[in-house]
């Protein structure tokens, strides 16, 4: 096993990786930018090195500086976390040629999975279902009709050269094909100077469900089941759960998805941890979307339900050990939910809210796990993703896990900045959410139907009372609130007076 590992990341994931390194008695080397000198990952590390100014392009994305730091500190391996360089094939290759182990898949697998088209072709070759579609230009509306008759309406006409919804039309019946084809083609011509269209089956109200994989360098791979990640805002996951309420209700679905995911990953020569993302329709049919070739943000819920430390397993297989786990060793117990706590204002269009943390009370107690990078007095930097912490809970059933999450969120207090903590409380109270009727458009619809986060009637008068009391107190004891005096200062003054 390694004796020293560098973490090429920051924030909560750097702290998360460091915790497992500690437990394995491996020294942790942190890297940091100007903005992060006082960040928790630097404070917690055994060794740390400055790698550049705050913008990530000048620090956390600088392959040369990270490799220099690794060799100067004698790190034998690099954990990339997620984001930054974690899915950069050149970085993985550069590590290997510098004689440093990249804790992740081989560079070639990252490269192959990095292209959506190549990944889709690999999935087809491996026999995994993909969203039915002909990714080549249609010659006529008749071809679109023939496709729709084979796979069923609704279908989507999309511009071959397209993106951003331009040149895209939904079609629900044979009679609409001609006009939709004409409109989409002329819009595509105007937007991209290319009128070519292709057709794809439209998955309505899709769920986003992913499968966690882990494999060793010798071709042995297991899956750790699914995570439901349909609660998204701005196409970014904010809340995840394991098991998926849909998968849990369908015998055999987890196994089918797991096997399909393993087939795709192995066909790309994959090893270490990775996640295969699927779109799932209302009937439980699943379609390969893409593969994330790294540890996922939401991995803790899988750890809570399966009892395995995925970072430890990553380190073991990266060090060349055989994966001793068999598929039948992996069992799923209870239910876990994760909320991504962001410095943002959920009542002002999720506007980022960086700044100084003036108060902090963390949730504790049974079944609560908090992966964070926040401390009282820390200033949330403006340069990076404003993720403060991932709050995860475990309990025996989905219902009791929801109750536990509400309880934990009520204990959680972050002062000085806005957070989305109360937004999660509202989602967890939502009937559609409780019924498990999830899809990727859930948050948008929820925002339209949500009621204001209204306080019980007695609270306002209590608040007024406390405000008056506080104000009167600070008027009579104006110096009672500043930071506590240092005992050293007192002793110093005392000594000076002797």
């Amino acid at each position, binding site marked *: 096993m390694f004796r020293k590992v560098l973490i090429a990341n920051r924030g909560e994931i750097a702290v998360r990786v460091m915790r497992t390194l500690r437990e394995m008695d491996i020294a942790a080397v942190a890297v940091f930018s100007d903005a992060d000198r006082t960040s928790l990952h630097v404070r917690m590390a055994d060794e740390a090195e400055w790698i550049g100014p705050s913008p990530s392009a000048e620090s956390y994305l600088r392959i040369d500086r990270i490799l220099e730091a690794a060799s100067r500190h004698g790190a034998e391996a690099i954990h990339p976390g997620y984001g930054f360089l974690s899915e950069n094939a050149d970085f993985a290759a550069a590590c290997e040629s510098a004689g440093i182990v990249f804790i992740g898949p081989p560079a070639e697998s990252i490269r192959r999975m990095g292209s959506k088209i190549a990944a889709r072709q690999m999935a087809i070759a491996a026999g995994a279902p993909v969203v039915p579609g002909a990714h080549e230009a249609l010659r006529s509306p008749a071809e679109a009709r023939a496709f729709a008759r084979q796979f069923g309406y609704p279908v989507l006409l999309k511009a071959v050269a397209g993106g951003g919804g331009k040149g895209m039309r939904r079609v629900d019946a044979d009679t609409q094909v001609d006009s939709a084809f004409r409109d989409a083609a002329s819009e595509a011509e105007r937007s991209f100077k290319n009128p070519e269209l292709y057709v794809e089956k439209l998955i309505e109200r899709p769920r986003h469900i992913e499968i966690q994989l882990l494999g060793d360098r010798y071709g042995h791979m297991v899956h750790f089941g699914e995570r439901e990640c349909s609660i998204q805002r*701005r196409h970014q996951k904010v809340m995840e759960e394991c098991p998926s309420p849909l998968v849990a209700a369908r015998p055999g679905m987890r196994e089918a998805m797991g096997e399909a995911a393993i087939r795709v990953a192995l066909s790309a020569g994959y090893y270490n941890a990775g996640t295969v993302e699927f779109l799932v329709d209302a009937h439980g049919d699943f379609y390969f979307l893409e593969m994330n070739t790294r540890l996922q943000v939401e991995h803790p819920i899988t750890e809570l339900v399966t009892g395995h430390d995925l970072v430890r397993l990553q380190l073991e297989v990266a060090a060349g050990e055989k994966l001793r786990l068999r598929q039948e060793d992996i069992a799923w117990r209870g239910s876990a939910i994760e909320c991504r706590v962001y410095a943002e204002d959920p009542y002002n*269009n*999720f*506007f*980022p*809210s*960086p*700044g100084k943390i*003036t*108060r902090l009370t963390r949730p504790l107690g049974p079944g609560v796990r908090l992966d964070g990078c926040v401390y009282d007095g820390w200033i949330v930097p*403006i*340069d*990076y*993703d*404003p993720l403060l912490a991932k709050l995860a809970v475990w309990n025996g059933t989905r219902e009791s896990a929801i109750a536990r999450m509400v309880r934990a*969120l*009520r204990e959680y*207090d972050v*002062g*000085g900045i806005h957070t989305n*903590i*109360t937004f999660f*409380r509202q989602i967890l109270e939502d009937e559609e959410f409780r019924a498990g009727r999830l899809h990727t458009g859930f948050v948008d619809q929820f925002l339209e139907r949500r009621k204001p*986060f209204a*306080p019980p009637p*007695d*609270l*306002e008068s*209590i*608040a*007024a*009372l*406390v*405000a*008056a*009391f*506080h*104000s*009167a*107190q600070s*008027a009579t004891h104006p110096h009672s*609130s500043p930071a506590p005096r240092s005992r050293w200062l007192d002793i110093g003054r005392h000594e000076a007076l002797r």
Partner: protein
Amino acid sequence: MNQIVAVEPGVYSVLMDGRSYEARIEQSNGCVVVFIDGHRFEIEIRDPRRWSRQTGRQGAEGRLNVTAPMPGKIVRLLVAQGDAVAAGQGLLVMEAMKMQNEMKAPKAGRVVSITAHEGATVAAGDVLAAIE
């Protein structure tokens, strides 16, 4: 017995009619903000014993400035000087922390000045536009 006890700096434990509450205080320009169970209350304290300069909160009357809530970059202007705008209408798009956000008109009126320009870097509190 009803009680208010300071338990930590800025944190009060309230016992009222047999119920227990925890209240947390934040000072915010001129008023006291109290948090109880995730709910936020802005309380204005008027204490005649204290000399206080009434800043005169900007209401719906007169000129209202739109300021940058945090440091960032102006991506796009959505209105021009002289435009009539509705309350809540987007004025400009600002990028901060890798996210783009629309700054909205705080009230209906006319854009009397727009000091921001596309591509400009702004600091928190900078005046971007004014509505009258």
